[in-house]
């Protein structure tokens, strides 16, 4: 039983106001609670209270008490909370302390001083429960995001806590891995564990959650049973700023007639350690289209994007636009990539300088153009701030601004909407559509069916380094996309 009583919380001295206000919440044992709400509504903060990171690690002003089985955990050190509450975080890259999977599983138990024999015994059980024997003894750095998240779940299960706290665990996962994650949650539910999950992607949890808590501005706005939540009409869900709870439906985009002029790609090949990861002999893409690159993780989507941008030096392959042929090195100046983590590509101290960096020189005219672009992207008020102080979405817009002024006509986006709520996803989709309307050809790597429904008008479906099919919104292709997002429908997996 978890009891939060009269919680008020704010982080440090920032003038951001209260992060949590007047939270009173009781979660009985064995309940699966989904906490949802827009970015910044305080849901992550709430999970940090339960796993003890607040006030032990993230400091701030805390009022009220957090009780687990009638002990106030806010007064306990983290290592005493660790065996009670297991945590899984959003970013699979930054939650591993060890470098190989076996030591990672043992890490928590070693810390609390369990005997070697007991650890080995538990490990055998967890490995068979999670069916991860094929992952044991491997380097963490060589795992995919989905595999990493499985290891993260397994290693928190090693401590055998009664409560699990998951903070947006699916943000960086593909459809198939989300299915695996759902299976893990189902297993814990079967074991009568208490589970608290914050999420933007809701549909995979509809068959698992018992209760939904909707947060707004740091307060609990709704506290519903899952049946009640499922009955909320889709329109209302969108108004609440939440992602769809039902499978996405796609509509024909017949209004968008694709260009006759084509980009022709030939001989895009790439191998990593002699294993071919990309094999595209010939591919035609209409100019000025918004291309969704879809497929499961490991299908070669990122490799394709990197080769397209000329970032892989060893890759051959030519791109033909009209009569011009671009080799890999020449493509470096033709394509602009907006990375998944935009803070990798922002270098200067001010937004203005950052965008000007993409232009030849710093003239009055250029400055005017930059101002206009910043205005279009709702960045005009921020132009003298340091880009590193921005949120992820703002950084992404700065990167888009510098892409626009760079004058390159091909832009590649690597999962631009992972971990975004409905409103922010819409905003990204609008920006992408604007870019498309300006005559650019966009390539979007994405696992987000809602983004695809919003803005893509051409598709490349990849599997094992090859393009399985490509094309626009024909009936056949639409059915293929529906199948792809449904084939891995989580609910069926669970009810099987």
């Amino acid at each position, binding site marked *: 039983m978890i009891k939060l009583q009269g919680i008020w919380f704010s982080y440090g001295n920032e003038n951001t106001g209260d992060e949590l206000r007047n939270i009173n919440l009781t979660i009985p044992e064995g309940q699966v609670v989904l906490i949802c709400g827009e970015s910044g509504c305080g849901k992550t903060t709430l999970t940090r209270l339960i796993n003890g990171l607040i006030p*032990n690690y993230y400091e701030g002003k805390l009022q009220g008490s957090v009780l687990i089985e009638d002990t106030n955990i806010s007064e306990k050190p983290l290592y005493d909370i660790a065996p009670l509450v297991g945590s899984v975080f959003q970013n699979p890259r930054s939650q591993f302390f060890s*470098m190989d999977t076996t030591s990672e599983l043992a890490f928590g138990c070693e810390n609390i001083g369990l005997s070697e024999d007991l650890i080995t015994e538990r490990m055998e059980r967890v490995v068979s429960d999670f069916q991860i024997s094929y992952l044991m003894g491997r380097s963490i750095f060589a795992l995919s995001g989905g595999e990493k998240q499985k290891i993260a779940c397994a290693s928190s299960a090693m401590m055998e806590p009664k409560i699990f706290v998951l903070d947006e665990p699916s943000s960086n996962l593909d459809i198939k891995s989300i299915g695996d994650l759902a299976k893990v949650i189902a297993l814990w539910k079967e074991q009568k564990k208490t589970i608290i999950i914050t999420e933007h992607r809701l549909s995979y949890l509809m068959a698992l959650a018992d209760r939904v808590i909707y947060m707004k501005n740091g307060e609990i706005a709704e506290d519903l049973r899952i049946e009640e939540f499922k009955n909320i009409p889709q329109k209302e869900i969108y108004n609440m700023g939440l992602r769809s709870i039902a499978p996405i439906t796609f509509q024909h985009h017949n209004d968008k007639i694709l260009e006759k002029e084509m980009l022709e790609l030939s001989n895009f090949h790439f191998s990593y350690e002699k294993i071919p990861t990309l094999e595209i002999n010939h591919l035609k893409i209409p100019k000025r289209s918004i291309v969704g690159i879809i497929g499961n993780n490991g299908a070669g989507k990122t490799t394709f994007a990197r080769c397209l941008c000329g970032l892989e030096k060893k890759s051959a392959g030519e791109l033909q636009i009209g009569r011009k042929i671009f080799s890999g090195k020449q493509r470096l100046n033709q394509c602009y990539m907006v990375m998944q983590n935009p803070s990798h590509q922002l270098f200067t101290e001010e937004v203005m300088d950052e965008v000007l960096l993409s232009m030849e020189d710093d003239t009055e005219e250029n400055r005017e153009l930059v101002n206009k672009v910043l205005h279009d992207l709702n960045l005009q008020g921020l132009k003298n701030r340091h880009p590193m102080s921005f949120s992820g979405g703002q950084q992404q817009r700065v990167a888009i601004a510098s892409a626009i002024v760079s004058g390159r006509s091909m832009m590649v986006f690597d999962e631009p909407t992972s971990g975004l709520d409905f409103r922010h996803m819409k905003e990204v989709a609008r920006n992408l559509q604007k870019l498309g309307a300006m005559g650019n050809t966009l390539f979007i790597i994405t696992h987000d069916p809602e983004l695809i429904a919003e803005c893509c008008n051409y598709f490349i479906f990849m599997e094992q380094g090859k393009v399985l099919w490509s094309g626009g919104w024909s009936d056949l292709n639409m059915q293929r996309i529906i199948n792809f997002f449904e084939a891995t429908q989580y609910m069926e997996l669970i009810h099987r």
Partner: protein
Amino acid sequence: MIEWQVLSSASKNLRVNLDPRTKLFLLITICILVIGGQINGIMLIIRPALAAISLILLFTAGKRKISNICIGVYVFFFICENFILPVMTGTLGFILLFFSGFITRLLPGMVMGYYTVETTSVSEFIAAMKKIHLTKKIVIPLAVMFRFFPTVIEEYHAIGDAMRMRGIRFGGKNIFKILEYRFIPMMICSIKIGEELSAAALTRGLGAPVHRTNICRIGFHFIDIFLIFLCIALFILSILSKIGVF
């Protein structure tokens, strides 16, 4: 996913699986005796013997290609140093002297260092350091450093890609600006990852005031004991030769 790491991440099945302590002792021995030792008397035998040990170990670790290259290079310069140099004069002789001296002294240490990091996993390393009763204050920062290296290198490459894509290259613009562009995003990203990493580690009980256990089993085998005694013997021999017994 490309791997960038300093210590090996997973223990591999090797024919010769040495205890990390043995590897460290060998490394120290080679560094002291081969780099710092003299090149006369008994040292003429000790130095190639130590070089041979490091090269054989690398060979048995399954690094065939690189160990063959190293063996070739070492043998070539060893022959130069001992048989060709005495009969050569002039500038060419000087250059050869420089290179052969450099390589015969440094290569064995580098090979041994490479072997050590390639074949030791972080958990083995921590277990070994605990066995020699090194304080936690040194072991934990070292372990964190090993954990952090691959992350920092990953960030470094991602930023490098972004710079190439945006056309920011060396030359032309101010070199300090280039360094700033490269390192400031890297530091900010690394700090963020470090913060998340510590939070994750703390929720898994790191720092509990109990005796920490370790499932990694290390221990001395016959080959370890043999190599350690060999090293001790070589040390004694070199000291004896220094004080002029031979």
